[in-house]
Each structure stands twice: as C-alpha cells, then as structure tokens.
C-alpha cells in the first residue's frame, strides 16, 4: 500500500471545518501515448475518495481521469473541532485502496 498520498489541511472555526486536500497521484488518463512505443499508457487514477469524521461521511468524490494530476479538493462542512481526526478512504482505478487520517487544526 502506498503510504500517505494525501496532504490534508483542515481548519475548524466557528463550528465549521474547512478542508483543503491534495492527493499525490499521477492520475494517468489512459489517453497519453508512450513516446517510445507509441502505445497508450493505461489509465491509472483515483476513483473514489471518502472523507469521514467520527464515522459520518462528510465528503465523497467519484473521480474520472479528467481530474488533474495530484488532485486537489476544497470543501467545508458543519461540525468538527480542533483535534478531531478525519478518516480518508481512497480507491484507485486498479482496485487498490488506502485509508489515511488527518487531524483538524
């Protein structure tokens, strides 16, 4: 399992938590050709990202290969306090999954 592909900045203020996150991922679109062989490079992208706070889903993204390399997301939700831990589950197009956590500042 690739470890720590997500960089998360979550900040709580006035009862709301705003999150900015970036995933380190190539997001290969499956449209590019290998410069040497001329063959298509197979698609490899993050397919699903689910963010939870205390087992409640606060954000979910289903992605296609049209999302830029190193995908970036910004969103905010009600609740969450400084020190709370969010859980992020991600699924790659290959079926590979990962779970990471990040604390709210």
């Amino acid at each position: 399992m690739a470890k720590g592909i997500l960089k998360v900045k979550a900040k709580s203020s006035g009862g709301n938590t705003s999150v900015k996150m970036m995933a380190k991922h190539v997001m290969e679109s499956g449209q590019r050709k290998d410069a040497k062989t001329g063959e298509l490079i197979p698609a490899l992208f993050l397919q699903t990202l689910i963010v939870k706070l205390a087992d409640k889903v606060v954000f979910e993204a289903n992605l296609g290969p049209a999302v830029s390399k190193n995908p970036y997301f910004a969103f905010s939700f009600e609740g969450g306090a400084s020190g709370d831990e969010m859980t992020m589950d991600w699924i790659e197009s290959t079926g590979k999954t990962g779970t990471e956590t990040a604390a709210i500042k």
Partner: protein
Amino acid sequence: MSINRRTVVKAIATGGALIGASVLMPKIAFAAWSKDAFQAKEQTAAMNALFDSATPEESAEVTLKAPDIAENGAVVPVTVVSTLSGVESMSIFIEGNPSPLAAEFIIPAGTKADVSTRVRMGKSTKVTAVVKANGKLYSAAKEVKVTIGGCGG
C-alpha cells in the same frame, strides 16, 4: 454455446463471487462509482448514466467558477457553489473531453455545497456543473478556452 446446467451453475457461482466481493468492501458499494457514466464518450450519455436524465434546468442558484482562458488545460481550477437547499451531489462535465464526466461530488447533509477542484481539459469547450438537489437537476455552464490541451497528445 448451448446453455446447459453446468454453464448456468458456473454463471451463478461467478456472479455470487462478485456480489460477495462487494459485500466484503461496503465502502466501495456505498461509493458506487458509476462506470457507465465515467466511461461515456458523450455528455448526454454520461448524464443519462449518472442521473437517468440529461436535461438539467439552468439555475442561477448554481455557480460555476472557472477561468475564461485556461493557459494550461492539464490544470483548470473549477469551483461549484450552490445556494440551493437539499443538495445531494454536484458533478462536473467537460463537453469536449474524451469522457465528459470529470467528477461527481456527493454532498451529505451538513456539508456545504461549495467544492473546488482542478480538472483536465483536452480543448476549448463548455464546462457544465450539474447540481442534484431534492431529486431535481440544476446546472450552470461556462465556456473555457484552453491554450494548451491537457489530455496528452
């Protein structure tokens, strides 16, 4: 190939295994990444696959923020904001891309209908944000010019 008992049993067994796998991974089952929608080559087909409808109503309560001219099609910042209540999901479609559906964001109750991300655009085309709220579809669109395409090539 004739359908005899053996093939039927086999088919059921494979089907069962697939269902079993999805039960083992409830997260995936819940997320429901729509393969048909993401692989559709045409915007209408993608909308139909995702929403069972391709006619969202244009709404001033949906705001799509995107640059007028994107210098680099590989990284086009897009923000979708909606003031509608009961937003369930927000999706971004890029008409001229090989697969128009770029991303679908599920907005659970308590999460603001305000999401930013970055997408790839193959060429200058129309970007459409579709917001599903209370079971209905609302949209906002914007033409974005791309100077350098972002889908390889």
